[in-house]
């Protein structure tokens, strides 16, 4: 599935290991929050990059104290209509200051990418949008009305910049 990050298509070097699956000795892996919770010490002791995949009902607060040990957080959108992932992303980026890769996976459509980007995502795994479309989607609006993740200045500030 195409993976787009920071405006370019990149190879996906990460593998999600299902809860019942065996952990490979090497390579970059992501696991569920449940597995991370129960096997955290083993996972963090590995010599490889570790990531966690959050499902919509997961509480990102659980990751707060481990964020500098994680290289990837995937936020899963089983259905694009389930918007809980946007709040998870905002919490991770803006409240907890997570600086690693934040990747949207699952039912990721072109027309959600603008909102995802502003919520703090920087990578999108999407079957339904090519690079050109993703880049276009990110630039659909020149201005924004509210602060969010990222460095866009909301219009209520721009209006009063002298």
């Amino acid at each position, binding site marked *: 599935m195409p993976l787009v990050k920071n405006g370019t298509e990149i190879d996906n070097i990460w593998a999600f290991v299902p809860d019942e699956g065996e952990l490979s000795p090497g390579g970059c892996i992501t696991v569920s929050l449940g597995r991370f919770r129960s096997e955290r010490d083993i996972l963090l002791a590995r010599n490889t990059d570790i990531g966690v995949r959050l499902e*919509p009902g997961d509480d990102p607060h659980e990751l707060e104290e481990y964020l500098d040990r994680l290289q990837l957080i995937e936020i899963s959108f089983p259905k*694009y209509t389930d918007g809980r992932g946007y709040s998870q992303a905002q919490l991770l980026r803006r*409240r907890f200051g997570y600086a690693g890769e934040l990747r949207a996976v699952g039912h990721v459509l072109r027309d959600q990418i603008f909102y995802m*980007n502003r919520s703090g995502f920087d990578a999108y795994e999407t079957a*339904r949008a090519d690079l050109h479309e993703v880049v276009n989607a990110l630039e659909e609006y020149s*201005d924004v009305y*509210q602060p*969010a993740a990222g460095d866009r200045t909301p219009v209520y500030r721009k209006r009063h910049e002298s």
Partner: protein
Amino acid sequence: MYRYDEFDARIVSERVAQFRGQVDRRLSGELLEDEFKPLRLQNGVYLQLHAYMLRVAIPYGQLNGRQLRQLAIVARDYDRNYGHFTTRQNIQFNWVALKDIPDVLAKLAEVEMHAIQTSGNCIRNVTSDHYAGATKDELMDPRPWCEIIRQWSTFHPEFAFLPRKFKIAVTAAEHDRAAIRVHDIGLHIRKRGDVVGFEVHVGGGQGRTPHLATLVNEFVPEAELLDYLEAIMRVYNRFGRRDNKYKARIKILVSELGEAEFRRLVEEEYAAQRDNEKIDLPQAEIDRILAYFAPPELAAKPDTSSAFEALKADDAEFARWARINLHPHKTPGYTSVTVSLKPIGGLAGDATDAQMMTVAHLAETYAYDDIRVSHAQNLVLPHVALDDLPDVYRELKAAGLHTANESLITDMIVCPGLDYCNLANARSIPVGQAVQEVFADPDYQEDIGRLHINISGCINACGHHHVGHIGILGVDKKGEEFYQITFGGRADEKAAIGDIAGPGLKADDVPGALKRVVDTYRELRADKGELFIETLARLGHDPFKEALYAAG
């Protein structure tokens, strides 16, 4: 009123371009209907029984003449010469072709209008008091804060895919005409000393499980309002139910968690906000928006007008209209005029393109270019000099817009029902019309006084039946339409959900049964000043139930 600056204008025109692309991708088949659905919904486009419907936002119900004229042109060129004003102060066009919608949106953008977030599971158009900025009984004008909320909620990246739609209403008057206690969030502007703040009510709503909102915070200072709203929205977005569409509104979250726990979650989220998350709206921006809503410069006038008094003495029909359709203005010599869209036998909230042109012309000529849409589906000219009322009335009459029934029994809220709507189980329009006929006599309705009858054609309650003094709900029983009657609902500062009186009635029996109820009220009321809803509260529902089911 608020006017777009370069930023607002660019955002709206970029939206038009974006939706044009989405429609192209849909028409070419690249987007499946299922994927197109959330996109069209966030642009106010519904797939209805007969065609696509386009809902256009009228922020907090305010229009100027140019905008209303443009709506008339849309009705003429893209619909069948009608527009339908809604209980959320918006307008709907029922017969627009999908391929034309991007062009319609471009036309709207020319006059600073859009259809953004008029549907879909996002924050919808903010509604308010239709007399805002004009009425005597308000603490201040609520519209600047409506506009601030409109901008904040527009394309909010975190809250575009909520569990369900989300409606915010704002009032600043003791008499609540914005129905804030049946909204997801209802805000009442208060003052403590010199500080403006908001009483925050959360979790009101109608639909199949009606709830009155819970008072979550008695006073959120204005500087903190948007941050506080963000906290409420995040709690809802994270914890609101998504397993069942009918349990997904915030009212269910509030009621399942309980008031105390819900408040605790909001306060916890609010307290956890870091500086970098705060909106921290600059005072200069608040002042900028306030300035747009400065009251019109009304020339000083005496309390009374000889032209007005003369025509009242001369023309009984005019005098009646003036008794019923005017609302006191804060400035002596002026008034707010309700333009009723509820003629007997008409379609509640409908206006023709020609009628819209008339009202636009009146607004520009006599009413400081200001028009409002009320949640009761009427239009309002908020600032009219008493001296000009004879001229205004003459033009309204020529356009068939002079019905004198504001807040009377024939001024009903009626949903489109089975005649137009995908969701409905029963017809609303013909039942509403039949009820109107029974009460059509002007003396009779004036004698009855203020009495709100609201009709919904299904349990989704778009016709606000739960909060009608008398509510009518159409239900389908084995292929036959029945109408359930409720008593005692109200949407104002004494908000209440009506109680079901008993078994449903057949459509043909509804008008006669309601006439018996109303005549019982006229016999039992303490005096002519006691409203139906007050007699009902004083005596209980039994005498009225008895009348409802008494054999004809």
